[in-house]
């Protein structure tokens, strides 16, 4: 244990309170001490105060001691005063009546002869934040602003701001902003000046929406006299106040170039400041002042480089991260500035991964002809790193550098080495990169294909990598000897492939392969199209159908659609528009840079999205338990229904022909027989001459496809209808976590029946109704006309969960639904289910 503070060395440190009896005990002791003038009283008081405050900190209500505490605080001991102020400040908010009691003694302390007590009392007085007591603030604040001690003035200035937030009109009526302005321009103490500046900025910004004068005053702050006044005193300001002044200067628009140079000369030594915040604020001033002068702007980059790099390597990881995100922004604008300092961005073993990730991004951004070799060598070291996410990131970084066109030759070799490393995540990442490389540099196909061909598709599990491999199999099937057979075996395992992306790629790859090597691929193509048509994923189904009809129409047209001659991709789309980047640059030295988003994206309500959700969930009533207790009868009934349902479900599963009523999968029963009944007679196969190789005579396509179709309809089971687990459980914590993690898979708007609207008097009515459809509510809230619900449901016999946010407006009879699901592919089905359940609400 650390040494206890001096005052407690005669008694044990504050003990853990045992409850009520102790509070009354304390009360008694305080009362005894209150009137005492005996020597040593202060020490015993201190011990008691400490106990009271430690009780307060751990959440025990000691507000009943208020009177005694105030009585005891009539002392000259500052520590006692401080503790008492702390106590008062904590309880005044919830106990305005008690606060009135304290006003008197605080006001008296505001006139104490010790400036420290005056200041502390004034600070506590302003921190009470009780609206009906503001009238008592004006007097002490007024005299505090005129106090001859700067400490009191500093406190009083902030006090004005606090007053403004409690009651803006009182503050304006007392003409405090004007007083502050006077102080700001005349006070000797720079801390007072700085506090005036920040208080006025805040007040005028808030006032400017209603008052033109305030708006004008705020603009004035950026005018030459003010800016020069602050700049001339810059060295006297504390480091934090310097940051404030710099922020102001960055907004100043100088009238000519000589002014710019004067300011920069004045501020140059700030770049050498030990405080990173000052350095970054100065950097912002420099960058913004010189925007109009291109060549000076470049020199500024050179000048700020060394100080910023020093900041990266000294200081805590958090500091490094903040600085690195700013460097990343700069390097986007001027890639060459750090090109010779790339070693600063080498990752160190001990660094937290968020710093490492940013450093990898920096390394990608600074790579150019001269340093690519070293950087890529370094990145390859990380690929064997113990930290797997970083290993992946570094492989991606290698790929990105390759796409920037430097030294591609060496990089391709490295990537191919990755493929041979026999680590699944390395292989996966490398495959995705090789695919992107080939799209840009088709000339490397020979080398790459030779290596890629050796990779067994069984060893690749990640969807992205598998899709990349399949793409290459399709695209380069003429060069890969066993491409058709690999694809065929993949098609055979169609049902085991869970990712729709992979299935889509597989369809296209088989098509491409078919155009290049028809005889070998025919069988696979038929099987793939059949499996695709029977697929329950809408996109896969549509693509298969599209290919099928395209082939039916004209094979050469199909080829020109599916496998047209391609041009190499010259530039991959940038994820962020330059407008957004400029916007972030304008907000240099703010969180926008760290988040890599302009501020409106995270401050405006509509952009905040899920962040908001966590607040709301707290306010909404949690219905997870109450739902059960309210409707026990329904539960039983529901269980009975469940038994019935499950028998019919089994029938559904066995009979692929009849789709469960709950699932509105597109029915092929209409289209497929029509296709088979006209066995592709009009499929202009003679034109396959265009592919350069006529199919063997025995393999007529109608035969082939016809066969496959019958097989397809007979063997591929239609997707099982979606049924929900009626007894799904999910605790609110997991719900919140999932809601944050999952992307929105569906967002729809339904209209509600008038009957439903009529029944929606209280949220509970809907909850019970939805529960009978196995959709549970976790939270609900709102008042007419707007209701908001969070539902969840679970797939029967599976852990897959659906989360729903449902906003119902009763006046427009509309409901907005957002669905998130563990299994994205079935969210459409769930949506239908949800809608049907909702539409039945209120029906008899």
């Amino acid at each position: 244990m650390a040494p206890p503070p001096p005052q407690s060395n005669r008694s044990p440190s504050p003990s853990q309170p045992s409850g009520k009896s102790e509070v009354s005990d304390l009360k008694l002791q305080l009362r005894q001490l209150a009137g005492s003038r005996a020597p040593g009283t202060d020490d015993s008081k201190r011990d008691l105060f400490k106990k009271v405050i430690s009780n307060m900190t751990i959440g025990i209500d000691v507000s009943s001691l208020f009177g005694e505490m105030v009585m005891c605080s009539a002392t000259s001991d500052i520590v006692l005063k401080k503790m008492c102020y702390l106590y008062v400040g904590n309880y005044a908010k919830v106990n305005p009546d008690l606060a009135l009691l304290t006003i008197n003694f605080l006001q008296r302390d505001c006139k104490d002869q010790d400036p420290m007590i005056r200041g502390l009392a004034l600070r506590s007085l302003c921190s009470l934040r009780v609206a009906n007591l503001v009238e008592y603030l004006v007097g002490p604040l007024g005299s505090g602003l005129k106090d001859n001690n700067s400490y009191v003035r500093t406190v009083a200035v902030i006090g004005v701001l606090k007053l403004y937030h409690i009651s803006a009109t009182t503050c304006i009526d007392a003409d405090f902003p004007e007083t502050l302005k006077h102080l700001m321009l005349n006070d000797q103490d720079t801390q007072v000046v700085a506090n005036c500046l920040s208080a006025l900025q805040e007040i005028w910004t808030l006032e400017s929406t209603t008052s033109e004068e305030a708006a004008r005053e705020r603009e004035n702050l950026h005018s030459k006299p003010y800016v020069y006044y602050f700049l001339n005193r810059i060295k006297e300001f504390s480091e934090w106040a310097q940051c404030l002044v710099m922020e102001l200067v960055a907004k100043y628009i100088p009238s000519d170039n000589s002014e710019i140079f004067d300011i920069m000369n004045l501020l140059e030594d700030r770049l050498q400041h030990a405080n990173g915040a000052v350095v970054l604020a100065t950097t912002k001033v420099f960058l913004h002042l010189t925007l109009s002068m291109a060549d000076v702007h470049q020199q500024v980059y050179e000048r700020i480089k060394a100080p910023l790099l020093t900041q990266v390597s000294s200081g805590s990881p958090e500091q490094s991260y903040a600085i690195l995100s700013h460097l990343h922004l700069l390097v986007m604008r001027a890639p060459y500035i750090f090109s010779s300092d790339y070693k600063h961005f080498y990752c160190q073993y001990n660094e937290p991964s968020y710093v490492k990730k940013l450093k990898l991004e920096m390394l990608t951004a600074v790579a150019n002809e001269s340093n690519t070799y070293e950087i890529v060598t370094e990145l390859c070291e990380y690929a064997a790193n113990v930290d797997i996410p970083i290993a992946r990131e570094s492989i991606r970084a290698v790929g990105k550098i390759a796409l920037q066109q430097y030294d591609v030759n060496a990089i391709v070799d490295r990537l191919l080495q990755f493929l041979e490393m026999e680590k699944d995540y390395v292989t996966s990442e490398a495959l995705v990169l090789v695919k992107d490389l080939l799209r840009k540099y088709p000339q490397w196909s020979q080398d790459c294909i030779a290596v890629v061909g050796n990779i067994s598709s069984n060893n690749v599990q990640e969807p992205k990598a598998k899709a990349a491999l399949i793409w290459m199999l399709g695209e380069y099937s003429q060069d890969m000897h066993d491409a058709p057979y690999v694809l065929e075996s993949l098609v055979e395992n169609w049902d085991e492939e869970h990712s729709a992306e992979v299935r889509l790629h597989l369809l296209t790859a088989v098509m491409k392969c078919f155009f290049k090597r028809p005889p070998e691929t025919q069988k696979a193509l038929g099987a793939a199209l059949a499996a695709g048509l029977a697929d329950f994923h809408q996109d896969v189904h549509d693509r298969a159908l599209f290919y099928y009809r395209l082939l039916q129409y004209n094979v050469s047209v199909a080829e020109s659609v599916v496998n047209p001659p391609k041009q190499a991709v010259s530039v991959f789309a940038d994820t962020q528009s330059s407008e957004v980047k400029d916007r972030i640059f304008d907000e240099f030295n703010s969180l926008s840079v760290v988040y890599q988003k302009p501020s409106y994206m995270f401050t405006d309500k509509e952009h905040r999205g899920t962040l908001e959700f966590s607040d709301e969930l707290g306010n909404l009533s949690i219905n997870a338990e109450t739902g059960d207790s309210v409707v026990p009868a329904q539960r039983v009934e529901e269980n009975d229904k469940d038994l019935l349902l499950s028998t019919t479900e089994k029938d559904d599963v066995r009979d692929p022909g009849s789709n469960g009523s709950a699932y509105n999968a597109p029915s092929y029963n209409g289209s497929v027989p029509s296709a088979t009944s006209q066995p592709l007679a009009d499929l202009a196969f003679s034109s396959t001459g265009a592919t350069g190789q006529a199919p063997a005579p025995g393999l007529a396509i109608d035969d082939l496809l016809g066969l496959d179709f019958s097989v397809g309809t007979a063997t591929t089971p239609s997707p099982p209808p979606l049924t929900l687990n009626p007894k799904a459980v999910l605790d609110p914590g997991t719900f919140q976590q999932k809601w944050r993690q999952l992307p929105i898979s569906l967002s729809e708007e339904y209209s509600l029946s008038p009957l439903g609207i009529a029944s929606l008097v209280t949220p509970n009515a809907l909850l019970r109704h939805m529960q009978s459809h196995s959709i549970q509510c976790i939270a609900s809230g709102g008042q007419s006309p707007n209701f908001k619900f969070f539902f969840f449901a679970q797939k029967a016999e599976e852990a897959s969960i659906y989360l729903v946010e449902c906003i119902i407006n009763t006046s427009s009879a509309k409901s907005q639904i957002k669905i998130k699901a563990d299994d994205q592919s079935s969210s459409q089905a769930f949506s239908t289910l949800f809608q049907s359940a909702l539409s039945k609400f209120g029906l008899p």
Partner: protein
Amino acid sequence: MPPLMAIEFLCRVADVINGYLGGLNEDSIKDNFVIVYELLDEMIDNGFPLTTEPNILQEMIAPPNIVSKVLSVVTGNSSNVSDTLPGSTASCVPWRTADPKYANNEVYVDLVEQMDATINRDGVLVKCEINGEVQVNSHITGLPDLTLSFANPSILDDVRFHPCVRFRPWESNQILSFVPPDGQFKLMNYRVRKLKSTPIYVKPQLTSDGGICRLNVMVGMRNDPGKTVDSVNVQFQLPPCILSADLTSTHGTVNILSNKTCTWSIGRIPKDKAPSMSGTLVLETGLERLHVFPTFQVDFRIMGVALSGLQIDKLDLKTVPYRFYKGFRALTRAGEFEVRS
């Protein structure tokens, strides 16, 4: 809100509380919550950072040290808050206590350097850099004005100063001219890039065959810096695919913790022969060779040498007519010193 302002401020709060309580953890804060409250009260108000200079804070709120304890027992005045407000809040050298008095006037200047280096598996120095600090401990009566100059300031790549350092003399003549705060403070940080060699070498060798990996690490002096290298320590994380490890060393002790962190404490490198550690690592069944290679983190300390080569030329005192004692020291430590294998 500038992000660095928040982070720097939090770091400063941590430093100050650390300085006051001699440690920053849950217990020390719980035991001294009154002081922590008082400190935070002075350091920030309504979201604006106010006084963060440790010197001034110590005048407003006395730290809970032994001196003040003794004082309170002797004098019976146990307030840990000084009776008057610090005068310097209004002075033009806000970092300095108003008017300290000392019987012995003395200034100690320490060069403390940290060497960050990365060495790849072929023993090539990928990156080597020194981050140094000039720490000053000054106890001088009155308002002294000091100048400190270096014999070879040109080797410094980038410098950062305590607010007390005047910028112009540095810019024109590379002289540090300053009115020091009272007591211990960091006068300057500097960075020296592109160093060519490290004082010690660490050579790890890993050869794997048939599910067994042989590890051999050699440590030795490279360029004798003239002073002893001590507190040498090699630490590394065994990859997760290793089932068991059996390592022995010719010098020092080897410790393997349950989280697979392996520490080899060597201490002082003996003059006559280079210490080595060797042994076998058993890999997971089914694994032939090792794919993930550990990074060795090396720790060492050299007293009496600043490896960057920076040398203090002279320290002068102006304005105050006292004789004073000057002391200089240097120390180099390993910072992020990594050897890849």
